[in-house]
Each structure stands twice: as structure tokens, then as C-alpha cells.
């Protein structure tokens, strides 16, 4: 995953910030349980979001405990523990492994290769627990790679592969919420794919990597932004639509903060960079 789905702390209350932090630390500890320090590096905001959403929906029994974090040895930290945080950790490992494998395949640095082989065993254990999710993740990478090799420029099609992967991961079990979670994950995945393309627009060009936005022949960055922003809005608002159909009451403030505001933070950084560069010209 990409870590695009973060919160905007400015519009979170103090209490909400503490909850977000406790989910973050809880997920970090789950990752550490699975593979020690090298797993912590996989921790990302997208998985924190998944844990929050599923915990808010199912309201599972939750353990809260304080611990001493090696990174912040002076103060006690608060962390949560529940079955969905644990689930999100396994999903995090599965998706990170696939994206790392993809990067190595694309001729990534030796460091990636080493990390990948050190994750092999941990990946197998998580993938063994959730075979369907692991299959969906592998299929997404395969379909995306094939489409990119064929120079497919249809963003709706390209983004749907990430959408399908995430929708599978959002559905932990088949029940009355499945379809809505599916839809929520699908559109969030599409959003993430397009945002990734936007964010990497310049660096992909430099490194001669495939980027669907390159194929559309924009004459400048503001045209490119004018195309991307409404489409991102269309995808994420469908995701919010599906979320609002779910009877989520717990953590709903934090989840809305992420879906309405946090998801735009990386977009805003890139937009600012692109447009100010253009003005200088």
C-alpha cells in the first residue's frame, strides 16, 4: 500500500488524536509480533484506516494497554489490541510484500531485494491465514503489470485492479455488510491508484516508468491537475457514499476526517509543488 490514507490532525479533537495514535501503536505492535523490527517498517496509514473502519463497524472487544516504546523510551504509550487490528497487520504484510516484489521486479535497489527475501516467511504465514486476500493482491499486481506493458491508458480500467484488491481486503467475512465494504474498498483503491500516478508524475517521467497520466498528452501541469482532481473527487465520494451506508458510529469522526480531509494531504503537497514550479516558468 502507499500510505496515502492518513488523517488530518488539525481537525481531530485531542481525544480522537489519542485514539488514532493508539490504533497506530497497536498496529505497530502487531507487526512487530509477526516479524520484529523489520516488520515495523511496513506500518502505514492505509492499514490504520482499515483497522479503524472495521473496528468502528464491528465494535469488537478491545484491549487497551500502555507500554514503553523503544523509540520513545521516556513516556508510556497507549495501544489498542483487537481482532481487526491484528487482521489489518496481516493485510499490511500481504500488500507490502506484493508491492515490494513488484518494485524488485522493476529493477529496484538491492536493499529491496534483501528486505523481500527476509519477509518471505512472514508473508507466507499471513497469506496462509487469508488466502483469498493474498490471491487478490497477487492478481492486482499481475493485471496492473500486464496492462501497463500493453500501454493501456484508460484510468478507469487501470485503477480498477487496485480497487478490486482493496475491496477484497475490506471484506473480512461475508455478512450483511460485505457489499458496502466491498464498494468502499473498491473506490478507495481507485483513488489510491490515481493519486499515486499524480504524485509520481514527474519522477516517473525522469525514470522512464509507466504512468497513465503521461499518455494523455497534457500540455502543462495545471491541465493535468484539472483533469485529476475532479476524477479523484468522483472516486473518493463514491467511497464515502458506501461508508455512509454502513452503520458506523464508533470512530466515525476520525474516519470522516480521513475520507474528507486526510486523503488529500499528499495530493495537496504535489499540487502545490507542480503549480508553483509552473508559475516560476
Amino acid at each position: 500500500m502507499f500510505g496515502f490514507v492518513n488523517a488530518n490532525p488539525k481537525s481531530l479533537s485531542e481525544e480522537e488524536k489519542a485514539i488514532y495514535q493508539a490504533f497506530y501503536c497497536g498496529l505497530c505492535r502487531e507487526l512487530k509480533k509477526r516479524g520484529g523490527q523489520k516488520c515495523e517498517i511496513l506500518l502505514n496509514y492505509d492499514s490504520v484506516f482499515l483497522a479503524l473502519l472495521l473496528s468502528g463497524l464491528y465494535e469488537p472487544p478491545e484491549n487497551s494497554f500502555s507500554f514503553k516504546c523503544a523509540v520513545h523510551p521516556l513516556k508510556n504509550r497507549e495501544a489498542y489490541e483487537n481482532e481487526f487490528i491484528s487482521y489489518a497487520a496481516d493485510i499490511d504484510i500481504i500488500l507490502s510484500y506484493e508491492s515490494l516484489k513488484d518494485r524488485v521486479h522493476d529493477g529496484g535497489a538491492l536493499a529491496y531485494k534483501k528486505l523481500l527475501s527476509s519477509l518471505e516467511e512472514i508473508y507466507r504465514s499471513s497469506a496462509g491465514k487469508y488466502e483469498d486476500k493474498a490471491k487478490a493482491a497477487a492478481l492486482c499486481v499481475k493485471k496492473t503489470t500486464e496492462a501497463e506493458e500493453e500501454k493501456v491508458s484508460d484510468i478507469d480500467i487501470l485503477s480498477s485492479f487496485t480497487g478490486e484488491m482493496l475491496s477484497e481486503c475490506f471484506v473480512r467475512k461475508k455478512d450483511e455488510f460485505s457489499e458496502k465494504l466491498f464498494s468502499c474498498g473498491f473506490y478507495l483503491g481507485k483513488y489510491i491508484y490515481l493519486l499515486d500516478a499524480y504524485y509520481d508524475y514527474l519522477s516517473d517521467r525522469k525514470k522512464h516508468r509507466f504512468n497513465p497520466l503521461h499518455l494523455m498528452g497534457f500540455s502543462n501541469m495545471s491541465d493535468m491537475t484539472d483533469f485529476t482532481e475532479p476524477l479523484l473527487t468522483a472516486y473518493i465520494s463514491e467511497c464515502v457514499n458506501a461508508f455512509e451506508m454502513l452503520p458506523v458510529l464508533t470512530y466515525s469522526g476520525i474516519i470522516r476526517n480521513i475520507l474528507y480531509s486526510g486523503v488529500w494531504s499528499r495530493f495537496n503537497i504535489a499540487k502545490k509543488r507542480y503549480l508553483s514550479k509552473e508559475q516560476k516558468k
Partner: protein
Amino acid sequence: MDPYKVLGVSRSDSDDDIKRAYRNLSRRYHPDANLNNPNKDAIEEKFKQINIAYDQIMNERKGGAGQSAGRGPGSSYGYRQAGFSDDSAFGGFSDAFRRNNERQQQSDGISPEMQAAVNYIRNGRSSEAMHALLEVPEYERNGTWFYLASVASQGMGNMANAQNFISRAIQLEPNNPTFREFSERLNNIGAGGWYETGRAAYGNPYGNNSSSSWCADLICMNLMCFCCRC
């Protein structure tokens, strides 16, 4: 049956009230919680009714806010969500189409493939609708064709294509109110609609402070460890 009565709520209650009432009832009547109950079948029936009522209310409310009800494409999960077939959820697709259809019949009629597409769309089967539409040879593709292709694309979550198709439909028939209505609805989902209002309310973050505040030290430390190790 009045869905509000099923959930024991009133029309003036907030969305959160509805969600709360639904949660309470569904917990009580959930089949998993009543495995040994002698009235198992009756309880399961009640559970179904609660879910139908909840969906109905939420869809109605979405319709009011001018939101769409995209079905989520390719979903393999049997749970039926309101899609284009549901007039209240989609703000009257069938109605809009009928008006359009009447006009069409006066001029050049409607091909069987397009009629099939309409039926698929009504049943929330957008990708089948698209398949049917693609059977129409290119020289026969008129405004209505592009309009239907736009509706089907939106249903599949293909927002960029939906936008292209509806623009083309409007180009071909600039005065068609159905096409304009749909285009406005598409754009309402996107820029300028309810989502933008929410986005403004929650603030527009510039990630510098937000993306690093939760545990920057950890990430830096790990990167260092990671680099040293390799």
C-alpha cells in the same frame, strides 16, 4: 411496510439515530445470537426485514442529498444494494429514460441492443449493459447510446469514461434535458457537490505536518536500521 416503523424511528431522526436503532435491533435479532432460539425462523425473518428497512431509509436519504448509489462493480457478494433499478435511490433513472425514449421513438426508434442495455441498467447490471451497448455498430451510435454508455460506466465505477460519454451525448443533442440532468448529477458527485462541502468543513491539509506527526522518529530510525543492515 414503513421502514421507519420497522426500526422504531421517526423521519426527523438523524442518520446517526437510524444507525443506532439499526445496530440495537440487528444485535438482538442477529441469527448468530439466536442459534438455540425455538423461534429461529421468525427471528431470521425479522433480521432480514430490519436490514431491508435500514437500506431503504439510507438510500432514500442519499437520494435526497443528490448522491448516487453506485453498486460497486463485480461484487461477488450476494447482498443487494440499491442501484440504478431503484428509482428512489437514483432519482428516477427509469422516468428520465422513458421521457427520452418517447422522443427517440418519434425519430429513429431504439435498437434491441439498447433496449437490452436499459433493462440491464434497471437491474443494476452495469457491465452487462455495457456489453450490450458495444454490440451496436459505431455508425449507429447516437446521443442516447452515449447517454446509456455513460450511465453504465458510472455504475461500474468508471467515472472518467462516464464523463467522456455524457459530454459526447450532449455534443450530439445539446438540447436534451435528460443528458444535461445526468451530466449535472455526475458533476455533483464530483466537483462542487456535497463532497466538496465536507472537504471544506474538515479543512484542506498540507501534509508536511500531518504525515509526519504520528511516529516520525520510528520511521527514521527504521530506515537507518534498514540501511545499515543491508
